[in-house]
């Protein structure tokens, strides 16, 4: 992994590549046929409803969404009715009740592991991918296809691609303050990126010795306990059992040795090493990033979606390399070949009814293609997650904060990363059932006992 984490590209290279691609993007939007074959059907006058969720990632993503919608409307003559939603809308009852009640969008974006509950409403995209996607784009995203299949392995129709990713994050890199390292007398070049958890603890203790009271944080809040760094540590020990349920979707994996060791280390960061704040039981990555911004923390695990916040709040430190992204690192002794979990943002087309159903579905796929344009993929990577197109990843290299290098080091590991399963109850498994036990463990309850209790609840939920 470390070998892949090369900083050979300079900021100048980065700007050159971004500039070239941006220019190409402008040219493309002026003359759409240059790179983008026109749709076979005339989409003029077709209206599609788009439920946007990713706009909540940050203001810049919302603006990018608006720009992409405008470009699509200009290119095709179709109209997009957009409604802005939040994570809670898709995780909670809003999407489900609306779809059951017949209020359906044509297309929506989502977090992949949250779409399993809506799968019966979705249209398979295989024929579109086969016939309507240009060769270059298809080649650039086909690495995702086996992972999509893996994440839906419990469904009878797992071969059908119903959620096509346009963006992704490998969870979870660490944001590091170089100035804190220097202040603590730590040689940054020798100690970055962080190698493993022993190295992490050693660095945090040195930083603590230099006056940073709680240099890092593990998270207890319901949405963050098992959504940031924990599963990567488990995965580093056992790449087959890092998910919440096994590959056959029949039982929980939480009583495995890897889970017990991974969670024990997570708890130890707070309880044994005392490197995480007293607020740990209810802390979140967003609040901890805020502490890092204020200079009160030195190493904070946070997903790449927070990059927009850092660009906004710490523009100088992001530009001069004070803020650095470190790839997630394995638990010491973890040799599974991977130490990151993949979360991605797919576009889904909802099955349409009525005489213009086929035309609407085609328009929806054209809209997905708009998101997959290289310039839009790069623009997305600059303000939020990474693009799903592999051929655009290089354009993210060389930024002063090293986000591209960190992401690629996590994506291109000896064992490929995989995505969490898309079981219809994945929200329950990952957050609702686990977090209360997680908080109890952080309060001192025995890890093995709590994981056993959690696993029993998951197993029970899987039976029905």
């Amino acid at each position, binding site marked *: 992994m470390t070998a892949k984490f090369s900083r050979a590209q300079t900021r100048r290279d980065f700007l050159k590549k971004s500039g070239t691609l941006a220019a190409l993007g402008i040219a493309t939007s002026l003359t759409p046929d240059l790179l983008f074959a026109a749709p076979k059907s005339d989409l003029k006058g077709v209206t599609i409803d788009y439920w946007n969720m990713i706009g909540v990632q940050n203001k810049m993503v919302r603006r990018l969404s608006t720009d992409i919608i405008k470009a699509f409307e200009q290119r095709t003559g179709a109209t997009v009715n957009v409604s802005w939603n939040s994570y809670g809308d898709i995780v909670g009852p809003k999407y*489900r009740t609306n779809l059951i009640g017949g209020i359906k969008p044509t297309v929506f974006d989502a977090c992949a592991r949250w779409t399993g509950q809506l799968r019966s409403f979705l249209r398979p995209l295989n024929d579109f991918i086969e016939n309507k996607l240009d060769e270059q784009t298809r080649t650039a995203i086909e690495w995702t296809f086996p992972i999509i299949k893996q994440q839906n392995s419990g469904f009878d129709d797992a071969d059908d691609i119903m959620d096509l990713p346009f963006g992704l994050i490998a969870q979870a890199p660490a944001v590091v303050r170089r100035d804190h390292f220097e202040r603590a007398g730590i040689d940054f070049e020798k100690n970055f990126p962080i190698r493993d958890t022993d190295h992490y603890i050693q660095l945090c203790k040195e930083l603590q010795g230099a006056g940073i009271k709680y240099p890092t944080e593990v998270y207890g809040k319901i949405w963050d306990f098992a959504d940031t760094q924990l599963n990567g540590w488990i995965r580093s020990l056992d790449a087959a059992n890092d998910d919440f349920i096994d590959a056959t979707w029949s039982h929980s994996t939480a009583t495995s040795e890897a889970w017990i060791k991974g969670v024990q280390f997570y708890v130890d960061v707070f309880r044994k090493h005392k490197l995480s704040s007293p607020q740990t039981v209810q802390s979140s990555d967003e609040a901890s990033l805020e502490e890092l911004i204020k200079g009160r923390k030195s190493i904070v695990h946070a997903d790449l979606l927070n990059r927009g916040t850092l660009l906004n709040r710490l523009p100088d430190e992001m530009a001069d390399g004070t803020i650095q992204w470190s790839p997630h690192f394995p638990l010491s002794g973890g040799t599974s070949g991977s130490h990151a979990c993949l979360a991605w943002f797919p576009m889904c087309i909802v099955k349409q009814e009525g005489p213009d159903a086929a035309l609407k579905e085609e328009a929806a796929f054209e809209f997905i293609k708009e998101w997959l344009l290289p310039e839009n993929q790069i623009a997305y990577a600059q303000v939020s997650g990474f693009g799903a197109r592999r051929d655009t990843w290089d354009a993210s290299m060389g930024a002063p904060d090293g986000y591209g290098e960190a992401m690629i080091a996590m994506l291109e590991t000896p064992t490929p990363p995989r995505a969490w399963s898309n079981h219809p109850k994945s929200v329950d498994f990952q957050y609702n059932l686990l977090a209360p036990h997680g908080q109890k463990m952080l309060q001192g309850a025995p890890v093995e006992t709590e994981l056993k209790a959690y696993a029993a609840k998951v197993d029970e939920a899987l039976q029905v």
Partner: protein
Amino acid sequence: MLDPQERKLVILFLLPTSLFMLLLLWLPFIQGIWMSFHMWPFMGEPQWRGLDNYGKFLRADYFWDAIKATAIYCLSTFFQLLVALAAALVMNQPFIPFKSLWRGIMIVSYAMPPVVVGAIWLFLLDPGLGMVPHYLMQFGLMDEPIYWFSDGVWARWIITFVATWTFWPFMFLIILSSLQSIPREYYEVAEMYGANILQRFMVVTLPRIKTAILIVVILRLAFNLAKIEQPFTLTGGGPGYDTSVLSILMYRFAFMSGDFGMAFTVGLFLVAFTAILLLPFGWLYQRSMRRHSL
């Protein structure tokens, strides 16, 4: 006595409301009872479970945590009553200037959405950024910040306190209007007979606002126990299940686990819990009404 013609008219007037109540309240309630005997997923076929859901809930590791959290949370109603009564008694004094202005200020917390109030308090109490720990430390009242939401005992009392702060103006407005309807002559007569302030309150004020107090206590008890959004914003039901009041558990089962059978089981426990709490107040209210009618 009503003649048959009038009786028909009464029935005719009652019919729309009764039909409305039947369709939108009683039928869903009865269906909820039926659902509680099933494993009832959001999508897919329900499966008959008999009393399994009830057994599962009673044996669950979170059952007693939820009952304890709910019991403490409902104390908020009585704290609201104390604050509201004190504020109403003060605001009813003739010497208080700018009464409209004060009343306006006092109802601000009630006028805001509970989620917003919850978010404000979350920020105010934040150990790192919040004003409350900052000033408590500045005035030497504590040495280091308290991590309110990381400790179950603190978290339970904080959600109770925030609910008190948010909802007391409802009681205040009703008690104040009840106080304002007491003729000033009653107090003058009591004073002539030498009654002190406490005696005036016990003999003149309390009997005349008792019905209003019982009504607001009954209403607020029922409303408070059904509150989800504010405690959920503040703690998410944690740490562990320490602040998972029954309504939060119900929400979790319905919309996070997608298990409506369990959600309604918890809901029926909530109904029973509420009914047990309301019974004595309902009885007192009935007694008070009977006395008035005599």
